[in-house]
């Protein structure tokens, strides 16, 4: 009986239909799995590396979010006494007249670190690193990445980047404090502010390591997608997740090196006395002899990465959401080809809109017009995607479980945040809105929250694939509603504050007559942020608890999905499939087709059966 239970329908089918690539899992002396260190730490197995990225990302998310709570406390309650934070923050709590408040330098440092950590470590490495690693080989029917070794290096570069950044939190002058974009001169002159010295040096070292990690990862992802697909997996049969990861990786390969160039120039300005980005600077009344450079040049280099970077963050989330929506609506994705084309269009356009971040930096207004036009054009493929998501779930037989809720929440957030982008994309309106809380609201909703929702949808959905267990649905639903309501409560009011002109990154506003009346609103935002943070802690509890104690996965394909990752053994074997690998005969979205609830990709077409959409 026990023997019988072990036989899986999937194995029988793959044995019958699959392709024999003469792979044998060499158990004896397998150099990959010989001991704990090789297996769990310096692992070259993509499934382990995915979990390493995910867990490291979660830890960074916790740190980054906790920072935001600390600076929100100071913003919401500028008069309150924060001496109770002294055990954690030490000298960064300054006590005056018996009232302890956050040192302004450290406030800036926290804002900077929060941005850097969330954008790069959590939403880039934690999101695309995790799911590209997990799904590219599994969904394509590959044994592993093209180069498992480079893949391992990619994780360890990311890890080291994290260590360097973490260390910078504890140095006596504090971490870098000039904003996540690290504009010169604050970033280029070690004497410009307390965080500009060692803090900035560590920041730039950390990010260069990070760039290496992204490049190693991206090169691997692209190579794997183009070279290691199983038989029958044509490009037009790839799930949308893979398309999204693929374009994301290309964006990374093309844009991160440009950032690296900017960092090299910045480093020379800092260490060797060049003046790439510096001109006519006065510090403490003293004129420096650094002339001839231009800080706007840095902004160009930064945003040439920076804008594609926001799509590097959102595209994987879009891919995950497309998949989750289709599986749990039990319907084929609407407009598969249009989805692919809009991913490609977004990828392309993301390279020619960067100066919309610089309308107010003194770029030529005629040049701005060019960027306004392309910025607004990006709304078109974005709208195509939104339309297709809504049409996919419209009339579906929805399973409203946690992954599905987060996927639907993603669409809501993406619409809300995308709309405000259209306002900002007009250079005339941006005169009022630039560097205000309106921008903060825009990008937190469209990038921060939406990307997190995509990631959560992915985590809840693929949790069984990663850990062989399920996360708790009850806690998951509380997590969803708490986050959904909480996120809107935090960021919706920021639009109003921003329209009124309240600048971002200020230490306090209650001294300005124009902004005084926002004090209560600010407090409301802070309280909402604290509650939402609490809900995320609940998620973490659910996540780690379920690794050991979650409900066990018994069926290989618990969601009734069509993609290949659900046909491989639950335990996750080295090489992904024992024996043969599945071959592919159809696209990834055959749901509710000809009276069949779902048809996995490895099932051959029947006599006279039509392909889904117009895939042939």
């Amino acid at each position, binding site marked *: 009986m026990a023997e019988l239970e072990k036989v899986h329908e999937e194995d029988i089918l793959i044995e019958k239909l699959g392709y024999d*690539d003469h792979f044998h899992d060499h158990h004896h002396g397998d150099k990959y799995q010989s001991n704990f260190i090789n297996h769990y730490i310096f692992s070259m197995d993509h499934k382990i590396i995915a979990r390493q990225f995910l867990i490291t990302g979660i830890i960074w998310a916790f740190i980054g979010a906790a920072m935001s709570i600390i600076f929100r406390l100071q913003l919401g309650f500028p008069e309150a006494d924060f001496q109770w934070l002294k055990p954690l923050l030490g000298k960064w709590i300054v006590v005056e007249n018996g009232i302890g408040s956050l040192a302004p330098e450290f406030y800036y440092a926290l804002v900077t670190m929060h941005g850097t950590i969330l954008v790069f470590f959590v939403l880039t490495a934690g999101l695309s690193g995790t799911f590209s690693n997990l799904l590219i*080989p599994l969904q394509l029917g*590959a044994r*592993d990445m093209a180069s*498992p070794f480079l893949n391992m290096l990619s994780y360890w570069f990311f890890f080291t980047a994290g260590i360097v950044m973490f260390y910078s939190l504890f140095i006596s002058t504090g971490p870098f404090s000039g904003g996540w974009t690290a504009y010169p001169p604050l970033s280029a002159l070690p004497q410009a502010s307390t965080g500009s010295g060692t803090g900035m040096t560590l920041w730039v070292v950390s990010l260069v390591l990070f760039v290496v990690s992204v490049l190693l990862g991206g090169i691997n992802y*692209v190579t794997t997608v183009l070279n290691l697909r*199983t038989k029958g997996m044509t490009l037009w049969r790839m799930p949308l997740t893979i398309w999204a990861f693929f374009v994301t990786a290309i964006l990374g390969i093309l844009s991160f090196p440009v950032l690296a160039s900017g960092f090299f120039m910045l480093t020379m300005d800092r260490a060797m006395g*060049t*003046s790439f980005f510096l001109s006519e600077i006065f510090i403490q009344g003293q004129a420096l002899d650094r002339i001839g450079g*231009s800080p706007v040049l840095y902004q160009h280099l930064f945003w040439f990465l920076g804008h594609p970077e926001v799509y590097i963050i959102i595209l994987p989330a879009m891919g995950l959401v497309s998949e989750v929506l289709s599986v749990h609506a039990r319907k084929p994705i609407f407009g598969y080809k249009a989805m692919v084309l809009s991913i490609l269009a977004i990828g392309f356009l993301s390279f020619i809109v960067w100066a919309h971040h610089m309308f107010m930096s003194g770029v030529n207004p005629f040049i701005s017009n060019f960027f306004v036009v392309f910025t607004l054009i990006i709304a078109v493929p974005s709208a195509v995607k939104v339309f297709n998501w809504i049409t996919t779930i419209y009339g579906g037989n929805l399973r409203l479980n946690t992954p599905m809720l987060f996927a639907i929440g993603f669409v809501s957030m993406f619409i809300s945040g995308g709309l405000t982008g259209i306002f900002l994309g007009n250079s005339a309106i941006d005169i009022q809105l630039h560097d205000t809380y309106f921008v903060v609201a825009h990008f937190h909703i469209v990038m921060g929250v939406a990307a997190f929702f995509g990631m959560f949808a992915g985590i809840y959905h693929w949790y069984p694939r990663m850990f062989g267990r399920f996360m708790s649905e009850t806690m998951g639903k509380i997590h969803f509603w708490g986050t959904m309501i909480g996120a809107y409560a935090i960021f919706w009011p920021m639009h109003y504050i921003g329209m009124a002109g309240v600048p971002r990154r200020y230490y306090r506003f209650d001294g300005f007559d124009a902004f005084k009346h926002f004090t209560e609103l600010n407090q409301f935002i802070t309280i909402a942020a604290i509650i939402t943070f609490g809900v995320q802690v609940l998620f973490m509890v659910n996540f780690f608890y379920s690794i050991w104690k979650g409900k066990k996965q018994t069926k290989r394909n618990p969601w009734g999905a069509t993609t290949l990752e659900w046909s491989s053994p639950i335990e996750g074997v080295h090489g992904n499939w024992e024996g043969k690998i599945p071959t592919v005969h159809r696209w990834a979205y055959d749901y509710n087709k000809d009276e069949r609830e779902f048809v996995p990709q490895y099932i051959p077409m029947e006599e006279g059966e039509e392909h889904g959409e117009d895939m042939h």
Partner: protein
Amino acid sequence: MTNVALKNNNNTRRIHPQVFALWMGFLSIIMMFIALTSAYIVKQAAGNWLEFVIPNSFYVSTAVILISSLTLHLSYSSFKKGKEFLYKSMLVVTLILACVFIIMQYKGWFTLFEGGVDMKGNPSGSFFYLITGLHAAHILGGIAALVVALLHAFTLPFKPTEKRRVRFSLVLQYWHFVDILWIYLFTFLLFI
């Protein structure tokens, strides 16, 4: 190191995945230098730009690296044809030429510095040092790869297997790449 994944090569493809991955690496290196050379153009157009004559040793180094590409190619084709002596000797010659290239670059920088073109001074000088320096860093990477190839050549028994051919071709392609990259950068710095 990658045999697990690469077994799965049932797609009829002409190009080896590792070679393809290397090309993706080239793409990112190209982007890095495109960024620098475009910044150069922008900065130059903004005025306050010092013109200077590029020292002769850079011409020498250009010739040297061109020749080194040829010698490495010769070594590679000898490897394929099983001509052990030519394979090994040309590899050694290439390594020597590579080191000569670095020395000539260094001499060039020194001459420039003596001639009053300082890294700290006008941006034109800063760009020159940055671009050539970053390129030299990539040459150093190439030298490391050549050393590995050399170790293979002299420690392993001579057997032109497919695996070793692919490895060697990775080194070869990288070396050609940094060579062409230098030609681009040199003509750029010369004429723009």
